[in-house]
């Protein structure tokens, strides 16, 4: 469901009239429910915006897929004066608290529509000068707070604004102008909202193979998805991946887990042949220590030549074996391996 956020009731008027809205019984006023979502009236300014949105999402976050903010903004850059009374979509939101520029910015989601895409700076006060023009072309009072709360709740947010005025030193009576035009702006916004085609977000196919043949642990699943992403970047045909999967389905394995491990190994071979070659070489060095009780590990990032032996020595035979293994270890070859002497 969508959550539509407005600063003032007048800005929401077309929505409240045209949708079957019912006031929601909540801790504070200004929340309405309609068949495909909710409307939240925050009140003016960044603090009201963050308090009310956070309060609402705290209770209803599980019902909300997307937040859309509708409102008005002032124009800082007269270069865009042709946009007066026009709708724009916001690209990035910045904040100025009193005289302090907040470093953090939020890049909003935006759709494939024809609205001009501009940046907006939220100010804690009503301002009448264009000093912030190097940062953004538009000025509002709430958006940054909404975006920061949306981010905290991991909700996508977009913002549609109408440019209500061009900021200059004489724009004191702006509230009157906004009030006068509020209904008209609201209708435009409602019209836009109605024509909003739900953009289909096609999930990238993860190609996770049939669970009746494979069983993925959490880390295997992550690894598998990483491999598939790499295969897509490398443009390895999907049919190749599917071929590997179906080939393994027809083979006998002791259990699904084993089949999954082999699948990952086979995919590595095809998607990262170089890495696979390195792993094969490492396996040979590891095999050199076969016969000892314990395990042998290498630097996990393959940056250092060091080898870690965790060996149990129970008797003199074990000592002899270890001494033999160490004295016959191909140290020079091992060192050359790290210098890139690899037979690829």
């Amino acid at each position: 469901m969508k959550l539509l956020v407005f600063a003032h009731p007048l800005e929401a008027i077309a929505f409240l009239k045209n949708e079957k809205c019912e006031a929601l019984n909540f801790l504070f006023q200004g929340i309405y429910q309609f068949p495909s979502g909710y409307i939240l009236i925050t009140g003016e300014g960044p603090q009201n915006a963050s308090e009310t949105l956070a309060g609402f999402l705290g209770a209803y976050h599980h019902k909300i897929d997307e937040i859309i903010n509708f409102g008005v903004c002032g124009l800082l850059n007269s270069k865009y004066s042709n946009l007066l009374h026009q709708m724009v979509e916001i690209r990035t939101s910045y904040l100025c608290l009193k005289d302090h520029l907040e470093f953090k910015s939020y890049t909003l989601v935006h759709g494939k529509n024809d609205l001009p895409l501009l940046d907006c700076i939220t100010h804690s006060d009503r301002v009448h000068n264009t000093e912030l023009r190097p940062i953004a072309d538009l000025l509002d009072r709430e958006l940054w707070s909404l975006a920061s709360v949306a981010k905290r709740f991991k909700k996508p947010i977009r913002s549609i604004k109408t440019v209500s005025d061009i900021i200059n030193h004489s724009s004191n009576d702006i509230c009157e102008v906004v009030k006068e035009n509020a209904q008209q702006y609201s209708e435009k916004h409602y019209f836009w909202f109605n024509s909003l085609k739900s953009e289909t977000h096609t999930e990238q196919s993860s190609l996770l193979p049939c669970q009746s043949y494979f069983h993925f642990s959490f880390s295997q699943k992550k690894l598998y998805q990483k491999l598939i992403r790499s295969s897509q970047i490398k443009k390895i045909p999907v049919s190749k991946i599917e071929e590997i999967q179906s080939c393994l389905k027809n083979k006998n394995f002791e259990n699904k887990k084993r089949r999954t491990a082999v699948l990952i190994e086979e995919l590595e071979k095809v998607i990262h042949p170089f890495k696979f070659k390195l792993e094969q070489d490492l396996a040979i060095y590891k095999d050199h220590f076969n016969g000892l009780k314990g395990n042998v590990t290498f630097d996990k990032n393959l940056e250092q030549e060091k080898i870690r032996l965790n060996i149990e020595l129970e008797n003199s035979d074990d000592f002899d074996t270890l001494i033999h293994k160490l004295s016959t270890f191909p140290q020079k070859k091992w060192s050359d391996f790290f210098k890139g002497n690899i037979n690829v």
Partner: protein
Amino acid sequence: MFNQVFIEKSCLSNLRAQNILNKLNKKDPIIIDDHESFFNKVKKPYLQKRDNLNLFIAEKKGRLVKEAPDAYGLDNGKHYYFIHAYNCIYECHYCYLQGYFHSPDIVLFVNYEDIGMNIKELCHNKNETYWFHAGEFSDSLALSHITDEIPYLYELFGPLKNAKLELRTKSANIKAILKQSPLENIITSFSLSPQSHLKQTEEKTPSLSTRLKAIKKLSDHGHPIGIHLDPIIFTENFKQEYEILAKELLEHLDSKLLQYISIGVVRFSKESFYQVKKNYPQSFFLAENMNTSFDGKIRYPRPMRMWILSQVKQILIQAGFPVEKVYLCMED
């Protein structure tokens, strides 16, 4: 090219600044006190360089010339870089600037004389060789037709016999250099990769053939040339691609004018790598495994990158490049 142009009040009477404004045909720039009040003050998304790139014309304060990192140099001389600009008009997916500044906006510093004075002061020991690199935070030549700094640099380095200047670029913007008589101590260096790699990892940069033509022109005029085969990115057929590149390069370059050819494998700082993943999730160097390496940078595993370096070195030597001119870059 620029959405808005801002100029520091103190630069208004600077002739170079005026020249830049004229060339950009910007009659009414926005006047600000200090670029630092805005540039880098807020996080401006990197990809806004595509459609919302601003320019700041400013004076560089503080240290203008800085000691270069160890692995920067090709020989044992002292290496410095000087700061003539921040950011770049090109968009290389691997560019470390995307994790370095908090804004893609371009800052051009116009107080060259201060930089020149610093450089002269540093070159006090006549028995020592001092290297200066332009372009640590920007491409050295991409905007040189607007900034007009090339004549100034030739004038500065002409008499500085114990100093060398490297102008490192991915551009083919060599007009200003062609107007100068070659100087032994000013080296124009080009970063090159096979065309298929350029196509997938760089945007707005000139093609390989355009860069090779620029190299040929400079070489025909007797200008010393440096080459950087950097960053090398592993692909299944990278060997064949570098063989072709080496051959083409030799066809465009008088090898007597070649000062060095350095080779380096793709690497990222942690912050850049994060930005790369965010900005270019489909970039093909993200298809290979990379790990944190000896200096904290993200690289291919050491055996792999050493193998890549040795292969490219071999290719260059076999193609006929003198072994003593081939350097391995940014490795321990």
